[in-house]
């Protein structure tokens, strides 16, 4: 039973956890959300741009999107964040006087997630039946308007589950911002847990951080499943037989 007690002391020290939780609520959670949400928005916009470039009839645009996507998806996130944070950080500092690592962290997270989201959008848009574009063009809409009004909205709908998965990844990856060095007020959930673990010599603050992450990510996971099911089965609505055909249909059944 010594082992169990040892484990409990290491991971479930309520006192150590209790001390860190208010800070996580007041500082860590808002910072994590700011990082994830802003990067999510920029990454989604960038992803849409990359997707449209990827299916463009312009070969240069396709190549740029392809190379960008291959590079950014192929690098470890930690490397991208370090390179962008330490590489471009000083330039931004000189230009704006801001010492916050947040803009660089958001830039790195957005650039990375943009590459993934671009591929998600592209696959969704390309999965839309080509008859949709044809029908829209036959009505008199141009290519751009057809994509905007008809094709892209359907493509996005189909890949919503994959998109939400990408947001979950962003919440988790936002923890990597600690690599750039944070002031006390800039710490997010992971850094607060890490600091508290270092000062108490106990891992319980990490467990508290884990709970915070799970509270954010598990509902999103289930939200994904819900959208997925909804997309598969559609909204429940009663389907009636064709009235005009009913007369003929009855004869066929008899």
């Amino acid at each position, binding site marked *: 039973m010594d082992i169990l007690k040892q484990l409990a002391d290491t991971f479930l020290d309520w006192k150590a956890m209790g001390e860190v939780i208010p800070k996580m609520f007041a500082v860590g959670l808002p910072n994590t959300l700011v990082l994830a949400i802003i990067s999510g928005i920029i990454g989604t916009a960038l992803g849409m741009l990359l997707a449209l470039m990827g299916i463009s009839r312009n070969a240069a645009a396709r190549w740029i999107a392809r190379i960008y996507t291959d590079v950014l998806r192929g690098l470890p996130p930690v490397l991208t964040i370090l390179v962008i944070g330490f590489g471009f950080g000083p330039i931004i500092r000189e230009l704006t006087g801001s010492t916050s690592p947040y803009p660089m962290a958001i830039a790195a997270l957005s650039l990375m997630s943009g590459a993934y989201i671009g591929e998600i959008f592209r696959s969704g848009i390309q999965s839309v*039946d080509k*008859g*949709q574009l*044809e*029908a*829209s*063009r*036959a*009505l*008199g*809409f*141009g290519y751009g*308007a057809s994509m905007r*009004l*008809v094709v892209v*909205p*359907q493509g996005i*709908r189909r890949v919503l589950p994959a998109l939400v998965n990408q947001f979950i990844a962003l919440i988790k990856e936002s923890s990597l911002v600690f690599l750039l060095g944070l002031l006390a007020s800039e710490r997010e959930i992971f850094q607060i847990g890490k600091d508290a673990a270092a000062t108490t010599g106990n891992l319980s603050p990490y467990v508290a951080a884990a709970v915070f992450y799970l509270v954010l990510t598990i509902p999103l996971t289930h939200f994904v499943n819900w959208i997925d099911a909804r997309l598969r089965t*559609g*909204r429940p*609505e*009663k*389907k*009636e*037989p*064709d*009235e*005009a*055909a009913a007369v*003929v*249909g009855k004869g*066929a059944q008899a």
Partner: protein
Amino acid sequence: MSEFASGTLSAKNIHLSFGSNHVLRGIDLHVPQGTTASVIGPSGSGKSTLLRVMNRLIEPDQGDILLDGRSVLKDNPDELRRRIGMVFQQFNLFPHKTVEENVSLALRKLRKLSKEQARSEALEQLDLVGLKHKADSRPANLSGGQQQRVAIARALAMKPEVMFFDEATSALDPELVKGVLALMTDLAKGGMTMVVVTHEMGFSRNVSDAVTFMDAGVVVESGPPEQIFTEPRTDRLKGFLADVL
């Protein structure tokens, strides 16, 4: 008197190749105002491609397309397509929009009607095809026959001068074909200029004013339905009719 402001459509010497595949080899088709031309022929004969060339979804390599006697090849193709309604085999309704939105989308965005005006015009069109009560349903909750009638309403809402039907009943269950054919017959009788690519020989024979038989990218025979169906002159048409009738 015609219920529609329909026009006269002509295609002259249309050629089109996809790579080395010569799909259309000098097609001529003349559809006078208010008449219905049906185009019949085996699969892969180029019938559907001809429709797509005549509304410039595909640009011809050679030849001319005239609407009311004027060449339209120099016009903006988007504007040309607003004057030609098209109905597809697979309906191609927009599944993310309601039935009413399917019909009103082009009215709002292309004819720049207000939302209310577009909706009321869309409901009027849906009423004509007997589906006003389905205005707020999604296409997925309609039967194939209903979907195709919505697609016809969507095309008619733009007040086209010509209507194209590309095997409009081929994807329908047999018992749903009748309602769609009846609607097409009403349009033909109402004076719409129509080009109907079809496998429905009954419609071709009884409703259309002229029949064009295509095979392997050429017009093999054309004429009034009586002549085409009772006195076929070429072996190819005789063989085709023997297969389908």
